[in-house]
């Protein structure tokens, strides 16, 4: 880490992130989290033509009693469109991890324009995200993911990640799996995979260069998790471009000055 200039708090957090590839913390703005969860439950109830629930968490946990796998993707897309159309949503989402992002990524950030939502019903094989890294599929290695559960997510109801050491071994052998496929890759490194316990009230921030994914949800309740990417505004972009996928959110005054600056002209 940068010697001597980082605060002790930043250094400790940074070391933990580099060691594990992720950190799990309590959200930094509980009121915003509760607002997001309550709105999602309202949107889900409206989509299903039900009254708004008294207990959003229990309602979301039990959504599999209302929605089957055949209707799940259309339902999920309606939820994504609904919450992303709320003008307060992205600011609220950012506030959940604002200080942690500043510590681990920077204070001039670009944020994904539309947060994604994963809904994984118990026993449903249609919503699986096999072992992958986002970088392999066109994301910049400078991005992190803020992963936010709206219900308690543990074991197969959560996601798995390979820690950096195991990930380095797997990534070095990736081309060996070109024909065997990523399921074979997962099987070979399954013993190293960590299923992360992230309860409602916490967020997970992880390095999406590490192999991660999910399995069939073998728990009794439904997973609801958002994922949204953040990166340093001036770090390199890959296939997910500034403007179409990312937007600047925290540009600082001197950057604005610099971007507008023109050297004096007119010399002959």
């Amino acid at each position, binding site marked *: 880490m940068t010697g001597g200039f980082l605060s002790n708090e930043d250094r400790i957090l940074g070391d933990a992130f580099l060691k594990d590839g992720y950190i799990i913390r309590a959200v930094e703005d509980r009121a915003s989290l509760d607002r997001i969860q309550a709105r999602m439950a309202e949107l889900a109830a409206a989509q299903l033509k039900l009254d708004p629930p008294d207990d959003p968490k229990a309602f979301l946990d039990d959504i599999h009693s209302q929605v089957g796998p055949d209707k799940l*993707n259309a339902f999920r897309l309606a939820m994504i469109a609904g919450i992303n159309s709320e003008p307060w949503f992205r600011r609220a989402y950012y506030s959940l991890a604002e200080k942690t992002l500043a510590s681990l990524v920077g204070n001039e950030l670009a944020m994904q324009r539309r947060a994604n939502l994963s809904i994984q019903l118990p026993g449903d094989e*249609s919503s699986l995200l*096999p072992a992958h890294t986002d*970088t*392999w*599929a*066109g994301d910049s290695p400078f991005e992190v993911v803020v992963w936010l559960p709206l219900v308690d997510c543990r074991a197969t109801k959560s996601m798995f990640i390979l820690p950096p050491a195991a990930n380095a071994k797997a990534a070095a052998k*990736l*081309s060996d*799996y*070109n*024909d065997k*496929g*990523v*399921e074979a890759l997962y099987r070979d490194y399954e013993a190293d995979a960590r299923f992360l316990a992230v309860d409602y009230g916490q967020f997970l921030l992880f390095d999406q260069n590490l192999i991660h994914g999910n399995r069939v949800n073998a728990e009794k309740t439904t997973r609801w998790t958002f994922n949204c990417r953040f990166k340093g505004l001036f770090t390199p972009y*890959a*296939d*997910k*471009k500034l403007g*179409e*996928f990312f937007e600047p959110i925290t540009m600082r005054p001197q950057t604005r000055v610099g971007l507008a600056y023109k050297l004096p002209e007119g010399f002959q």
Partner: protein
Amino acid sequence: MSEPARAGYRGYIGSRPVLGNRAPQAVQNLVVRDYCQRSGLQYLLSSVEYAMPRCYMMLNEVLAELPRLQGIVCYTLFMLPEAADRRREVYRRVLAAKATLHTAIEGQVLRTAEDIGRIEDIWLVQQALARAPKTL
């Protein structure tokens, strides 16, 4: 015993340029969805090919899934492997699985072995054009 019902058509999009051109993944998905809608095909969420050159891991995943699918809808024909023998292996696996391969941009469909020649003609001419003069 009757065979289990097969799901619809898996989209297949990419994260690296094709023939030097880049289309955002959201646009590729729109094109694939629109093709499915116009063709009366049930669209299934797309697999995204990895960014590494000559990597076809996601295509192989979809090919392995074919016995449970009706087929694949690629964003473009030119996402298939550049090497002719690897392309022919793709065609073989599609037909062996009794599935179909569609390409949304070109509107090409591989349903039978007779379709291979037509699709390969397009591929071979395109590869020759890459070496031909670019201006009139």
